[in-house]
């Protein structure tokens, strides 16, 4: 009854019973809200396909976390002339060439408050709790309603003025990618954890391929200990793809290392996200921007709060709630800027370091020859269109907080009207 009312009167409402999953997802945001101005503020971007949580701190790092509407039992989005609902939703219906401001809603909230509420509500382990999120446009509070068999709880959160998020410089230059890498999430998580344990301060990402398939993908930590190397396994089952390009996203070159240099505090923010990740796509462009796309599988969600793991796994089985079949999982997109462009000397040091073996001796290398392989744009596109080789390769649109920046992005692709030159520009490629 209550739900009906909300659906009828509010512009946006969505309800779910997967509070664990919601908590897991929102926890990934927590490292990003710890620094920067307006500490807890997170922008929720709502459109007809789902929710995006966006946070940018200090103009150097930005996270966008997407929850598809399939997660929700019911999903209603009504804004202005545009109408969309979970039932009978039609993708092509709403496309407007101008990218339409009406296409989405932006809500600015304190994420910690919402997390706290969900955690509190989630403590009731005997019952299934249905959580409804709703918002009625500017000036209204953001509302959470928790309902179990007996109690209905309504929580209102103040919303704040949405400031324009300036994404300049935080968008991957897809035409000038220098390396691209797909790796299993758990391995990346272990590596980041190791780096954290040795108190890493600055971190180099080192990638090098060779023709014989002996690829190297490693993190090099610079800390009190001096340089430490964490080499990730290069077996194909783990390092699914590693490619170095010659600045243009198309020319593959071997035996030339690609090196990125990051403040570890930034890199470490994605650690929680990688913990739930199945696969991670790392790309870095020539401007020193690293883009990390993280896809979590819906099956083996690990609750990020360590203390609650046991609790929650048992609970999940008790309740016998599996996530909806067509739900693609949490999709996280992080972009971060390099700490500084490394100079020639630093680059040489790193190369030398990576070329010493465990005995502290140089590996005798054959003279470096840069072999360039030309691949046609088309070919590459084909190979990468299903980068993660998931069965469930359907397109999912990820809304961008700055619609102006990607005006032509959204539906063109789906309609087959236009392809970007670089096929990896959209998250849908994950699937």
């Amino acid at each position: 009854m209550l739900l009906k009312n909300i659906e009828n009167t509010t512009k946006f409402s969505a309800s779910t019973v997967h509070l664990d999953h919601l908590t897991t997802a929102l926890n990934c945001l927590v490292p990003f809200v710890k620094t920067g101005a307006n500490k807890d503020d997170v922008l929720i971007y709502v459109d007809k396909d789902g929710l995006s949580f966006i946070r940018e701190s200090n103009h150097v790092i930005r996270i966008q976390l997407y929850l598809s509407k399939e997660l929700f039992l019911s999903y209603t989005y009504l804004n202005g002339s545009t109408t969309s609902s979970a039932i009978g939703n039609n993708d092509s219906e709403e496309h407007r060439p101008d990218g339409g401001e009406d296409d989405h809603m932006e809500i600015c909230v304190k994420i910690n408050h919402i997390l706290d509420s969900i955690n509190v509500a989630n403590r009731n382990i005997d019952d299934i709790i249905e959580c409804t999120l709703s918002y009625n446009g500017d000036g209204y509070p953001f509302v959470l309603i928790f309902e179990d068999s007996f109690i209905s709880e309504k929580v209102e959160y103040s919303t704040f003025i949405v400031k324009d998020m300036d994404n300049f410089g935080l968008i991957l230059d897809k035409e000038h990618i220098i390396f691209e890498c797909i790796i299993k999430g758990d391995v990346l998580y272990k590596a980041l954890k190791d780096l954290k344990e040795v108190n890493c301060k600055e971190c180099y990402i080192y990638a090098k391929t060779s023709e014989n398939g002996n690829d190297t993908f490693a993190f090099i930590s610079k800390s009190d200990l001096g340089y430490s190397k964490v080499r990730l396994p290069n077996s194909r089952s783990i390092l699914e793809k590693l490619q170095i390009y010659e600045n243009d996203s198309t020319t593959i070159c071997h035996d030339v290392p690609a090196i990125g240099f990051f403040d570890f505090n930034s890199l470490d923010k994605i650690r929680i996200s990688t913990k739930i990740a199945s696969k991670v796509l790392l790309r870095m462009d020539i401007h020193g921007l690293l883009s990390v796309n993280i896809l979590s599988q819906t099956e083996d969600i690990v609750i990020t709060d360590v203390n609650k793991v046991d609790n929650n796994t048992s609970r999940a089985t008790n309740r016998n709630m599996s996530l909806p079949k067509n739900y693609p999982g949490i999709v996280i997109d992080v972009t971060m800027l390099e700490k500084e462009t490394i100079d020639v000397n630093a680059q040489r040091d790193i190369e030398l370091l990576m070329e010493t073996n465990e005995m502290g001796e140089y590996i005798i290398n054959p003279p470096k020859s840069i072999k360039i392989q030309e691949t046609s744009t088309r070919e590459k596109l084909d190979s990468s269109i299903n980068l993660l080789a998931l069965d469930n390769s359907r397109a999912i649109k990820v809304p961008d907080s700055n619609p102006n920046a990607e005006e032509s992005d959204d539906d063109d692709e789906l309609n087959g009207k236009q392809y970007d030159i670089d096929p990896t520009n959209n998250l849908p490629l994950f699937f």
Partner: protein
Amino acid sequence: MSFKAVITNPEKHALWCRILYVLSTIDEVIKITISDKELIAWSINSTDTTLCQIHFSRQFFEEFNFEPNEIVFGVNGLQSKRDVQGTDQKLYSFQINGRHLTTISKKPDNDSIRNFTIVLNNSSSCPETLVDRLLIRMEMESLIVKEYSPQIDPIQFDPIIIDLKYKSRFLDVFGTTAITSNANSQLDPRLLEIFRSIQQELEASLFNGEIEYGIRQKDQLTEADEINYICCDRILLSNILDNATNSITELKLEINPNKLNMTGFTKAIYGKDNDLLRNAMSVTNTINTLDLEHSCLFTAVSGDRKKVQESSKSIIFKLKDFKSFMSISSNSKSLPNNADILNLWFCRPGDPVLFEMKKMGVRMELVQTTDGIQTNNFVQDQNIRQVISPKKGTLQQETKEIKKQEYPFRDEAPGKSTREKRKLLDPNVTKPSLLHPSNPTPKQLNIPPKRELFVQDISQGNVKRTAACSLREEVTGKQNVKSRKLRAMFEPPSEYDPPVSQNEPVDVLRRSPDRNMLAERSTTTIGWGKTDSTKEYVNIDARDMLKDEKIKLLQHDVTELKKQSSQEGNHMSEFGPTQVTQPRGLLD
């Protein structure tokens, strides 16, 4: 490559990590010395009161290469020592931040280590960036490969050879050469084995040249030669650690030929206006020395037969480092040979105590200074002698024989009865006269069988007691005449009563026979008649349904006595180490 060591066994790696952790708790710098035979890791704390030294033998590692001749960088870590065969052995030493080393050696959660490699490359093939760096490489089960290169600082190894000194002194005093062949035959073969292995260790050590053998007159032990040795299962000592809460800061070991008292305690702290800031606390474990593997006590035996003192050795040291040292080998699976044997050497209070454990080819040593408050002065004692624990296998027989000789002279029973006895001896205590009438002798005679539960060995000897007297006197006469070697007899621990009392040493000292004061209650009752423990009174009460007034009075007296003795009886560890700081037993 100048040095390479590989660990693949997870258990060994775990041990390596625990050891490094313990070393890093002692000091922030861990010092490492590599020789052809072993890798020595050690650290000494900033106040020079604790030293932990771990010898990883070559065999501990799956692979161990040391090529000192290739070292061209960091040469100030190079040293050369001449070994027994006269060949030069090269050493390379450096120091490294302990916390770092611990962190990077640690096994991560949810993953295990497939291969752990330590490399030092200061040879000419070393790239500039890796000079003076220890390369640690870990291959994980998850296929992740981690390589760390912490900085090292080459140093000269200046060995602290307290362990070697103690061991050589130990051999000197107790070892096979120091004891007549006659006595030797009675020694436990396992103890002889220990002597042999220590001997070998000393000979093999590169640093034994620095041991100063004190110029000592043959056949003449002096106070300076004191060394005591205890060998026991690690569990015995770790039990007291388990009992001790975190607030307990110090540990006192007190051993006499009959028993070992381990007391963990903490002193009270008072603030202004006598506010109690911290409560005093103590917990004591007492075990029979028969439960020890071996014990060798260095003691001066003496005493007037009528004034007998319980002789004990005691040391007090800080618990913290000892606790972490003991934690090295905790929770490990049972391992063959010596896995859980703890060796312990100590001298006088104030001198360092040395602990040693061996495990999986690793020899772990902890040296801690002890409190020097108590003075265990033997003074000009000529009757210094060694007490060595009996051969385990043949214990029963030997003890019987010895008991024949010594039984009659045991003056004190363990526990409360001793204390009371001492009180009785004490002129200050006026009560004893009351006690005497109250204890009817027949009842005492009844008591021994019940007491057998507590002290079995002695009870066996009871029967032959009377016959033994004459024998004993013979023996003592011989002993006085004979040289030191003869005096260094092998005797079961229960026989000896080394003089505990430091204060009245000289008069007591001359009489070697009287050292057998500790013993069973049965003997005690005979020697000292009616003054025995409260237990006797309890027995009386139980049996005599008709108690007379006298007995009640007596009980009252006894309790009073107890109170007094608890205040005054510094010897008895039961009364709390908090009082130990007081000068020892004037009454004694």
